[in-house]
């Protein structure tokens, strides 16, 4: 599904160059669930960005379904993100001027799906927000906003979901509910899940955990979950 080969990522910082990731080799199989963990500044989010085609590595290759993302244009990467991936952010990232339903519909509408509205209704129903579809983000709680974000991530039936600290801004109970939904939808749709997290409750539910430290993978272990 997703293969990283000898990835290196550096950033210029004034006259210096900072190496954020180096010697990263990683294979994520279809339908698997993977958590990326590590201390702050270890390069987790940078790695997620590279895997999702949001950024390009300084060296090495990212293969998505055997397609090398490196030579693709920005528009081709956008097409992959639209058709094959879903995103869940720590801070929800809903468009404030759009209703819950309109937010969910965006990826499907971008794809030109005539069933976008029906699919959005269905997903909002699945996450328990069918009554709040006309509400704006500011009228929803943090947990509700994240549920809308989950519905948006799954609307195009993506092959892989990238989640960046999906419970980071939520209390334990709400976080647990969100994880239930995330893993439930993931299971129902047969999606691959790659999640960056500090949340132990989350790491206990994934199949494998990749640990980063100072930009390198220091451990990869299977949790035994199925």
């Amino acid at each position, binding site marked *: 599904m997703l293969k990283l080969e000898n990835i290196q990522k550096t*950033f210029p910082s004034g006259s210096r160059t900072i190496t954020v990731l180096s010697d990263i080799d990683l294979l994520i199989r279809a339908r698997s669930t993977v958590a990326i963990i590590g201390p702050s500044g270890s390069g987790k989010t940078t790695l997620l*960005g590279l895997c999702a085609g*949001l950024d390009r590595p300084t060296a090495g290759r990212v293969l998505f379904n055997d397609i090398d993302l490196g030579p693709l244009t920005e528009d081709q990467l956008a*097409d992959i993100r639209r058709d094959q991936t879903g*995103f869940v952010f720590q801070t929800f*990232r809903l*468009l404030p*001027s759009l209703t819950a339903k309109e937010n969910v519909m*965006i990826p499907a509408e971008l794809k030109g799906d005539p069933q976008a509205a029906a699919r959005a209704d269905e997903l909002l129903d699945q996450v328990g927000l069918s009554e709040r579809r006309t509400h704006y983000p500011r009228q929803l709680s943090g947990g509700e906003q994240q549920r809308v974000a989950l519905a948006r991530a799954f609307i195009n039936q993506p092959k892989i979901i990238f989640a960046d600290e999906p419970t980071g801004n939520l209390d334990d109970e709400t976080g647990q509910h969100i994880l239930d939904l995330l893993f439930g939808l993931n299971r129902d749709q047969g999606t691959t899940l790659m999640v960056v997290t500090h949340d132990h409750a989350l790491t206990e539910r994934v199949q494998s955990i990749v640990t980063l430290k100072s930009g390198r993978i220091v451990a990869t272990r299977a949790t035994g979950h199925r």
Partner: protein
Amino acid sequence: MKHAPMQRGWLVRMAWRDSRGSRTHLLLSMAALAVGIAALVALRSFGERLDDAIDQQTLTLLGADYSIRSLHPFSPAVEAFLEALPGDSVRETRFYSMIQFPRTGDTRLSHIRALDGSYPFYGEIRADPPEAAHLFLSDPQRVLIEETLMLQFGVEIGDPVQIGQQTFTVAGRLLNVSGETPATASFIGPRVYLSMTALPQTELLREGSLARFFAHFRWPDASARSIAELRQQHQTQMAELRLEMETAEERKALLGNALDNVYHYLNLGAMVALLLGGIGCAASIQLYARKKRNCVAVLRCLGTPARQAFSIYLTQVGVAALMGTLIGAGLGVALQWAIPWILADFLPVDIDSRWSPAAVGVSMLMGFGLSMAFTLLPLLSLRDIPPLSAVRDDLVPARHAARDPRYVVVLFFLVAALFGFATMHTERATHALLVTGAFMLVFALLTAVARALMALARWMLRRGWSFAWRQGIANIHRPHNQTNVLLLSLGLGTFLLCTLALTQQNLLRQFTAPADEGQPNLILFDVQPEQVPSVTEQLAGKNVDLVETTPIVTMRLTAVNGVRVGALRDDPNRDIPHWVLFREYRTTYRDELLDRDRLVQGRWKSPSSLTELIPISIEEALAGYLSIGLGDRLTFDLQGVQLHTVVRSIRRVDWREMRTNFFVIFPAGVLEDAPQYFAIVTRTPTAAEAARIQQTIIATYPNISAFDLRMIVESIDEILSKAAFVIRFMAMFSVLTGLLVLGSTVATSRYDRLEETRLMRVLGARRAQLNRIMSAEYVVLGLIATLAGLSLALIASWSMAHHLFQMPFRPALAPMLLIPAAITAATLLVGRLLTR
């Protein structure tokens, strides 16, 4: 891999959905633009109607198909020539003379117009009562007097009025004459109409009197071509008879040029308002784009191509600009009704109340195009937002806009649009280039000041300052600051207003200065030689300084270095103005030059014998027009006697001085016996004293005219005040636009500030402290912006005074203090109101 095509329907839907909550912002962003477009629409529409009116009312501009004029009473030869010309004709004599109202004893220099028939042929004399417009023709004992004159002295219809030796009765009030502009028609003296048959009884016209004699012709079957042919046919004969011809078409062309200048000036005001509006738009959209960064990042993350994400916001801004354009056009159409009223005193034609759809359309197109050019620059930044910033903004490296070719292209497009816009308004590429260059220079200087201020604010911050001052000054250089925007909008507004005010004050000072500085202020003209001793004696008995008594002898130029003036006129290699060759030269003679006669070449010389050429002194500009210098010979005709002269000195004359100034000065010993009259230059201490002297002198010698400088200054002041009102009217657009720019900038940026304010409140800041922080920031920004604008205005006003008006520049203190203070106060007020 399949690309989804750009879905226009979704794009529009998305733009609509995303604009929720921002629509007021977007419209507010366009408010300043709407004001600029309103000004443009109103003026262009007015301009087209003015052109139409001048085309349709060409004949009323002259009141005749053509007119012949002379500086001398028509001789039998001239009368015979005029009789042979085609069409019906009316004779008119015009001159300035004092009139007196016996009931009150008041006197006033007036413009006397004597007619022997109904004129104008086209258009009308408007009077109150209407029949009074022609009553003076049928009843030679009656006159028609300008309304302002009657109001000034409380004169009523039926009152007596003394003109020369004859007493008339006031038949009615003169309101206006077709083709004449109320503001300037009565500049030196108000108009007084009387019958030609009554003119001899006044005994005002004598040999050498300053009068002009007209024959106006109505030739209904004539075309512009046939009149041109008529001129061609009689050109030589008219030159010999010293006659000049003017046609309605020529008057139209002359007027067209003058009105074009006014129109272009007003358009410049509209252009400034529109540019300010454009800057306001750009500033506001920059803040809007900053607010939308996150949305774009998320959309990109969800698979929206950069171009599509950018198009969403381009659509929003485009629709808002269109709305602003439509609102502006509506306002402009409403406003255009007011412009003829505002310019009424300067318009010689009646403007109807139609509006021009073509002018409105073109203005809307220009306004919309320019606003899009301005907003494209900040909007482009949305194309550069990478999807990664939705995850971690700090991971995205900063981009340098200046190195991006797209920005360079848009900047080029913006400058080209500005140049195109200026070309349409000034209609000359060089002027357009100058205007574009000037605007770019002002922008560049104000931007440099903004950057310097930010650097200074960073450098000068001191720990010892109060918390409010430290925060306020720091806001000047912190991210999301408004320094650039406010410096540009306020600085430009101050620059324009101060330039207008300083130039107006400087112009006015030129006329008022003599009255204030012990210079002459009352000049008596047309004093006959035998009247000089008596008048001088009368003046000596009063509290009057007799400055100088100057003889004036009129003559004509007949040849330059032996070449006849007719031949000079026809010489295609020479371009000597007609008036230089054919004017009536009023010369004087002196023993020695006066102190104020500034010699630039040669030296003053008296004739050593009567047989040699007469040495004369000529004025510098005249020498330039005739391309002559020392040693060149001029021949003058004095009542049939040829005077052969040689240029021995060249003088520089300051024509603004309220004295008798001359193009040609003869030495004493040549002209003493020639027909002449005198000008007596005096200084009276008060206006009341000047009025008393005029009454006494005029009662004894009605032929003498008195030019009261105070009254002329009042007339100039009145005209300048009317012009200033027009200027202020246009400047109002700039101020209004500037305030709207300020309002929209502050309103849009307050979201950035609200977060900071909330944080400050959480950290324990009191409202008063927050107010002080905001005040410190806006006071400093307002002061620096207005000082920068004032500095540029001083340079511009100095430059205009020296190069355009050729006068010394003495800046008036009041506008320099009041305008920056008022704009700074307005900035503070708007800032306080919008950040409460």
